């Protein structure tokens, strides 16, 4: 990666005894679309939430243009816009009211707020639905509204957590178009996804998260070349090869065990869960569709 707009230096994040990220290093380049990919529960959302200082690193430091993000949270908060998987807006406010509300909370001046709302509504394609209450919008519209809320204060960096999750193929395509459009205005986009085809299509750079670590980062082309694969699905297939399988399984079991112990559940469910993961990994070898594989892993871990 080039000059890092955001830099992770030996960042570890753990919740209680459960280590989610272990001494990761990551650099995000300005003006690019960067994808963080990995299986569910690997810590993709945790990385995003650490960038916006919602979580503090347990160890290590995160910098934005050499400024420590945690120490400069208030100053830097206006530079980031975030949209999380489940959306974050008021269901009982209209699309326009949501934009207006968050615009004011971000301190957007009244003179420019109305103009900015207009721009955002146009960008996310919700002009016709500006007066519709958020709860009455379709799923795709809600996703776009959430991105609109994240963009209302004109951030330099847009962070999107699973922006295409639960969307049908048509809406997924629309969403990717929107992300490209936003990026074309100079906004750096950091997104997470489990859909490797989508990441390959949209991202300038990707970072692959596996077993608490970033195991690969760079352009999709470079990674594919390294693993001698024609697509990222193949890369994943190789990552989940026999060599890594044991490590992954042990890690998954360890994490599951910790979660179960924390919740006071019985060992029986741990065994069942572990067996299911094992079975799914076997199935993954046979399957070409890594999307479906990852969906199943996600289901098993849940």
């Amino acid at each position, binding site marked *: 990666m080039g000059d890092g707009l955001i830099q992770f230096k030996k960042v570890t994040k753990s919740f209680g005894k459960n280590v989610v990220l272990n001494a990761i290093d990551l650099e995000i380049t300005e003006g690019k679309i960067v994808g963080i990919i990995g299986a569910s529960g690997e810590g993709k959302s945790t990385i995003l939430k650490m960038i916006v200082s*919602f979580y503090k690193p347990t160890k290590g430091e995160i910098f934005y243009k050499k400024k420590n993000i945690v120490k400069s949270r208030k100053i830097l*908060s206006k530079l980031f816009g*975030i949209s999380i998987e489940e959306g*974050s807006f*008021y*269901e009982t406010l209209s699309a326009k009211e949501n934009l207006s509300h*968050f615009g004011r909370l971000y301190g957007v001046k009244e003179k420019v707020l109305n103009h900015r709302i207009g721009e955002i509504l146009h960008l996310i394609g919700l002009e016709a639905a500006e007066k519709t*209450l958020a709860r009455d919008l379709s799923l795709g519209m809600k996703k776009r509204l959430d991105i609109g809320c994240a963009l209302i204060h004109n951030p330099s960096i847009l962070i999107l957590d699973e922006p295409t999750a639960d969307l049908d193929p048509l809406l997924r395509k629309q969403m990717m178009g929107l992300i490209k459009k936003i990026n074309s205005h100079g906004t750096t986009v950091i997104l997470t996804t489990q859909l490797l085809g989508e990441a390959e299509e949209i991202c300038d750079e990707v970072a692959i998260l596996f077993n608490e670590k970033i195991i690969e980062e760079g352009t999709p082309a470079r990674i594919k070349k390294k693993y001698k694969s024609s697509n990222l699905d193949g890369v994943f297939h190789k990552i989940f090869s026999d060599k890594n399988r044991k490590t992954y399984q042990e890690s998954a079991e360890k994490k599951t065990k910790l979660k179960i112990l924390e919740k006071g559940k019985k060992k029986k469910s741990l065994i069942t869960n572990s067996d299911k993961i094992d079975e799914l990994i076997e199935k993954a070898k046979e399957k070409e569709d890594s999307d479906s594989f990852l969906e199943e892993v996600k289901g098993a871990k849940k």
Partner: protein
Amino acid sequence: MNKSLLEIIHKNLITLWRSKFSTLAIIVVPLLVILLAGSAFNSAGLSGINVGVYSESYSSLTENILTDFEENFTITRFDSVEECSDSVKNSKAQICIIFPADLSEQGSSEEIIFYADYSRMNIAYNLIHGIESKISSKGSNLGISLAQELITALNSAKDSLPSQKTNVDLSKSNLADIEQKAVHNILLGEIENASIYLNSIYGSVNGSVVKNKINDTLEILESLNESNIEAIKNIGGIKNQSEEATLVLKELSDQIDILIANLQSVNIVDAENIVSPIKTRVESINSNSSNRDYLLPTIISLIALFGGILLASSSILKERKSKAYFRNFMTPTGDFTFLIGNYLTCLMVLIVQFAFVFLGIQYFLHIPLAGMIGGISLILFVALSAFIFIGMFIGYLFKSEETIIFSSVLIAAVMMFFSNTILPIETISSSFKNIAVFNPVVACDLALKKVISFGFDYSFILGELYILGGFLGFFLILSYVGRRITKKML
């Protein structure tokens, strides 16, 4: 006020307004409470009370008392003591009274017994007091009548004693005369002289006839002398008796003097003074006259308590459950601004609520509060703020809707139980009482009472305001900490 704060309030009000049921509840529920409480408690005494009675034999006095009772209570006669006392246990009657069979104006050897359910503490004392007053009043009337007879007799004695004393004095005087006139030894010398003379002439006379006549005369004189001696003895006895009688009469006269003096010193002329020598009168310190007026500060306090806690906890829960909660943390707007924004929204809603409540009080219950609105507003502002922050803390403390609603109601109920609402706090144990005096509901209730019932100014409610202010500050800090903690739980 910064723009973010205004925006938060604006958003909260829009959200609330769009929830029509919430808006309706905010306005209608407190009004209903006021109207229902106002109508229900608009009386000064007890009504609809069933009194169970039993007596082996209903005397005329008992019947008389029961006739009096029937003006206020519903009387049910039972066939035994057990039936009567059971009627209290199964709530058919609120009190059972057992009258002795021989109850009469002259009194009774047995007592009138009350069976009351003390578990209904708030009514038991009231009821016993009410009924005892009625019976006491009847007893007093009887006592007055008896005392009046006594006074009449005493007055009659007082009037007749001086004339009796005069009679005694007259008798004493008569006896003194008798004593003086009882000369008893005058004739003795003359008889003796006559005997000596006759004996002296006896030798000088001849003739038996004359001598016989002299002898006869001497015998007569002897007999006369003996009679005289006897008479003297009798007179002496009479004199002694007369002297004794004089002494007795003197003593009687003195006693009559003392009686007259004592009777004259007794100034009671009114029988009521004997029955109730000390008169009492209870003057109400309240200018109001019905239970509703006395309860008004408490009702207002309870509306503030439940309104403040429930509205604040539910609004915080709504905010926490909202999808937007995460984004709020992402904005540069600080936690304190959100906290104050939510607080001010709740306060504004409750102010609107209380505006309706006061309009209801003014126009439906006709209780004028306009003159004291400044004091009431100050108390309510501090109390509502305290209750709102307590509610906000509950909202941040728990996660689920059920727990938050349950906790809010529970905490509000505990505050209500340890206030003057159900029983005066003086009736609870001293250790709890020492805590209960710092209960914000008690403080709010007392302060409102001072202002509404007694017309006190601000200087008299400073203590209560400090307590409420303390709660306000304490729960403001706790709410802020709670908000920070919920961020970590996202």
